């Protein structure tokens, strides 16, 4: 089962996302902020498949710090940045640093939960595809070493 970590400093936001993603059959964990998230990422037995994190928490760029920690733990962890207010500069920065995508919480007229669900599914797919590629490279290397 895929493991997802939700990071947001607002309790009701965590609860709402958790409820929605559990519906999709995901194994959902939650963290209340940047430091809580980093602790959970470092302490996890198995790395998270997807981390979905708010941008502004303890700091204006807490989200980027969580992104960095997640990628340090496992380069193939897909990170989605959530934010209350869209900012192109922030979005570009996140993508440059390796985030999978960037989602605004308050787009008028859009059901952001369905959007999140789709994005997470896409993220999981990309991660699985990456894992397959890694295994193939591994296998190839071993085959040629032996040979």
């Amino acid at each position, binding site marked *: 089962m895929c493991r997802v970590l939700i990071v947001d400093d*607002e309790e*009701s*936001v965590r*609860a*709402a*996302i958790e*409820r*929605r993603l559990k*519906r999709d059959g995901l194994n959902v964990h939650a963290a209340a902020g940047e430091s809580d998230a980093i602790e959970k990422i470092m302490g996890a037995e198995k790395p998270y498949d997807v981390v979905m994190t708010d941008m*502004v928490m303890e700091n204006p760029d807490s989200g980027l710090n969580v992104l960095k920690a997640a990628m340090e733990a496992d380069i193939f962890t897909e990170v989605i940045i959530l934010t*209350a*207010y869209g900012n192109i500069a922030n979005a570009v920065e996140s993508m440059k640093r390796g985030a999978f995508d960037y989602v605004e*919480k*308050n787009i008028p007229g859009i*059901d*952001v*939960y*369905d959007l999140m669900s789709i994005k997470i599914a896409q993220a999981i797919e990309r991660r699985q595809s990456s894992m397959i590629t890694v295994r193939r490279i591994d296998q190839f290397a071993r085959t040629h070493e032996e040979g």
Partner: protein
Amino acid sequence: MKSYQNTLSQPELCLIRQISALASAASSLDELLQAILDKVIVSVDANRGFVALVDFDRGELLIKCSAGEGWDAEKMHQRLQLHASEQKGITTFVAATGKPHCTGDVSKDPYYIKYFDDVASELAVPIVDAYGRTRGVINVESPKKNAFLEHHEALLLALANIASLGFSIDDHRSRERAFVEIGTELAASPDIPVLLSRVIRVAAEVLRFEDCSVFLLDKDRHTLVLEASSSPLKDEVGDASYRLGEGLTGWIAEHGQPIRTTDPRNDPRWRGLYREVPTDDMAAYLGVPIESRDGIIGVLRVLRRKTRFPWFQHSFTTEDESVLASIASQVGSMVQNLRLMDRVVGAERMAAWGEMSARSAHMMGNRIFAIKGDLNELDYQLLQPEDNREDYRGLVESVRGGVSRLEEMLQEFRDFVLATQLSLLEQDTNQMVKESVKEFFPKRSKVRLEAIYTTDLPKVQADSGKLKRCFAELIENAVSFQLDGGLLRVSTGLAAAKEAQELCGLSPKRKYIKIEFSDAGPGVPDDDKEKIFNPFFTSRAKGMGLGLSIVKGIIEAHRGRICEAGTLGMGARFIIFLPATGL
């Protein structure tokens, strides 16, 4: 003035050199005049003498220094009206005409009036300044007839010249004092109206520019509005105005050049719109532009009235013009500084607004996100085959709660907007605090009330209704945190010199009224001392209260500050600083 040097004797020339040296060394004009008088009486063998000075405002002579016999208090305080006609006194005649007068037999002199009984000869010379104005008269008397000769008159005239120098030095000293005083006062002025009233005061008292007015260009830079005046025009402050280019004053602002004239009415630029002084009474007009780095920002002008005495010159000199120009330049830079400060303060208020708006947007955004979550879940539930009425109801309740919390946030934001829109009037702090206590402190309470009101506090510019609600909030908080009894101490007073700066970062140049609400409740933890003033810090479930963030918004809109300075475990201590008016 003719040179009489060749008629003077050696001792007389020696005396002149002595007095010359004294002129720059003397610490005051009075000292110099007294020295001249004392020495000259001995030198000309007079039995009595005095120096009288002209009081320009009243057109009178007053006796400044005296020497010799027969003086008493009454005679010393005599004031002599200036007259050029006969039988009004030799001294006044000399002052009026600016010419020396010597008589060997006073009984035969048409100008003599009896002052002392034993006078036979009298010699009086005028002290004339660089502008040709008589500043005073040196007068000597003798009981002998024909006591004074040509060389005595020459000596007195020479000494009068030196006295005239003394007057110049004294004028310079008083101008220097004026500049220093203006400099210090201007630097300490907290806002523009106070600054201008101080300038006018110094101009009037130290420089004797009595009918003085300041006009400043308004925001569109088309109209000069009267901002301060020491003349009868002062009742029209804020109303009287000139368009740029209109009248002498408008011309000055448009061209950036001063105007100095003794005949304003016949100047083609004259409009006669606002006259401190009736036109016929106007003897002289002097106006200079007030400049700052942004260009011309106003005009400083002074007028002089005609005196009763046609021979009296009372026009403005080049010296007066340069003094006024110096003052104007100081005023210009100070006004510019104060306007910059205003913009900074304005910017800080905008920053507070920005902060409030950002927080509101964030909190509301999260709340809406949660509501949308509930709706998404409801959508999903409604698609399920099972009937989950309980779940639907639960979700609807959750949405309802979310919307309600959203409305609370909206309300708090609206309160903040309204709170910072003030109708300001001059108010008495003690009265506002007393009324709040009377209205909001519960009639029957376990909490003991102590109130200390300092009397004679300066007034404040305030929106009484809003401030009282702030006080109400603090009173109610204190009571609600001490339900089992305690203490509420309310006090008012003038803040000590640096207190406002140290506690709340306010400017040390202003004077503040300090209002304190302290209690014996649980107090506020150090970490929370600033947070308690943030919007949404605590829930507004109580409903009635404004919240401390609104209180802070109101106080800051009054240009004051509020802070919490109590100790955890010993009680909360809220201190409000409000700027005092008129200081």
